[in-house]
């Protein structure tokens, strides 16, 4: 993993051997770019790259690509998230070229939440490709310089290609084979679902490591600080594929309401510190959903600041 395939700072950080740090920003539900710029500037110096979500939870938002460009113009390195729910292979390849034309250097390939969760529940979904096939598509475009249809691309995209993994979704036994499959498709970095069940995550990492997968891909552990016991309960009961152990809920419930947010951050920091020691962990993906102002504190307290020069 020593040659650079893109101009991505994230790629360099990971390949040099530093623990990488990414965070995420959700584009606004309107056309005003100031909101995303403000979020970006809050975390700019504390992360290596910022994921920009693609109509997350199937709610219609400003396009991920446009929001990425806004961040890029501020000197913030974006990770373009792309879901296969809304666009067919023509549109996906077209947007990949569009991103490459702005020299966006990172992309995360996802299938996306089902549209029944969003504001267009009666809409058609596409799923022409699945997330693994999207990874294959980007790799093909980059490495072979060709479109899926076989034609040559003038100036192929240079993207560092990522995928997501959920160590907690069911069935558990398939979670490592599924990671292997994503790697076989060409994923170069992995950002995981939010981790609250640290023991189960470690078990997943151990199995991945036993299969040699951590040598083949950079695994960034997903972290989301809890704002309150209410949020923890919601995540446990309502968010598909989320594993929130009861002890997290009890710990948050055990402190006064006004201190729960700080306790959530403390838990997050403790988890990062614990996971830093786990072999195969290449970095952290801090998803502070609509709480970007707390990312600097988490990064600093976790000993991940300052970010390295690469």
């Amino acid at each position, binding site marked *: 993993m020593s040659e650079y395939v893109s101009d991505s700072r994230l790629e360099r950080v990971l390949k040099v051997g530093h623990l990488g740090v990414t965070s995420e920003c959700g584009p606004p539900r309107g056309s005003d770019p100031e909101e995303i710029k403000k979020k970006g500037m809050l975390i700019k110096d504390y992360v290596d790259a910022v994921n920009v979500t693609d109509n997350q939870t199937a709610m219609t938002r400003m396009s991920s690509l446009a929001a990425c460009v806004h961040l890029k113009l501020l000197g913030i390195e974006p990770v373009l998230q792309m879901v296969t729910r809304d666009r067919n292979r023509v549109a996906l390849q077209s947007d990949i070229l569009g991103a490459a034309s702005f020299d966006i250097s990172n992309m995360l390939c996802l*299938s996306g939440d089902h549209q029944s969760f969003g504001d267009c529940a009666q809409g058609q979904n596409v799923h022409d*490709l699945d997330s693994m*096939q999207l990874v294959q598509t980007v790799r093909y475009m980059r490495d072979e310089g060709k479109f899926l249809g076989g034609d040559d691309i003038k100036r192929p995209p240079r993207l560092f290609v990522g995928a997501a993994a959920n160590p907690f979704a069911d069935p558990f036994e398939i979670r490592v084979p599924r990671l292997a499959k994503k790697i076989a498709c060409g994923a170069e970095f992995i950002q995981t679902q939010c981790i609250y069940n640290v023991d189960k995550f470690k078990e997943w990492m151990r199995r991945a490591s036993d299969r040699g997968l951590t040598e083949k891909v950079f695994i960034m552990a997903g972290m989301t600080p809890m704002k309150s016991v209410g949020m923890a309960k919601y995540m446990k009961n309502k968010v598909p*594929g989320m594993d929130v152990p009861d002890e997290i809920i009890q710990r948050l419930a055990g402190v006064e309401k006004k201190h729960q947010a700080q306790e959530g951050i403390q838990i997050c920091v403790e988890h990062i510190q614990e996971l830093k020691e786990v072999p195969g962990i290449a970095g952290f993906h801090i998803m502070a959903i609509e709480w970007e102002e707390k990312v600097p504190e988490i990064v600093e307290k976790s000993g991940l600041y300052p970010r390295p020069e690469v």
Partner: protein
Amino acid sequence: MIIAEKKPIEEIIREVEAYDRILVLGCNECVTVCEAGGKKEVEVLASVLRMNFMAQDREKTIDERTLERQCDHEYLEEIRDVIDQYDAVISLACGVGVQFAAEKYMTTPVLPGVNTVCLGANEDRGLWTERCQACGSCVLARTGGICPVSRCAKRVLNGPCGGSTNGKCEISKDTDCAWQLIIDRLKALGKMDDYEIVAPVKDWSTDRAGGPRTVTREDVKI
């Protein structure tokens, strides 16, 4: 089998309101099995329509007929000598039957009396479930005989997606995760290694993306 379900009676009444002489036309095949459009349903619908119009003091002719199949020239021909006696046909066949009747009898309105839902199986008394989306290029050999195209809400060919919880799909606790079923079956077959074979980008040109599909068999043509 093609699975259909009855349209709401209010919708059917609205559709036929303008016509005085109506033929309720059933089909003896799939819709009979799924109890949406066979002889019994034709009788029930015709009775409901008669009662509805009688209550409004409106005189209408509502006749009943059930054909062996509405998706076949031979059987649809059976109504040729009577079709001119009607202002409209309300067809209790699937969408295929409705269309085939409509194109055969160009000047008679043929209206749908059922909603055609899917290709499915009769899983239990009163329970029909989707099994196939007729994508035209079957992947079942690779997926333990369980179809991710019709049974995964995201048609994920390399699943399961990250939303699978306790064997259920992220869209509903009542919906099985197709990939959980696939994995269970691969395990039972002792073929778990097959899971890691990557399903390539699918050719959807055999699906509806390629336009209306036709099957031609020269060997059975007359």
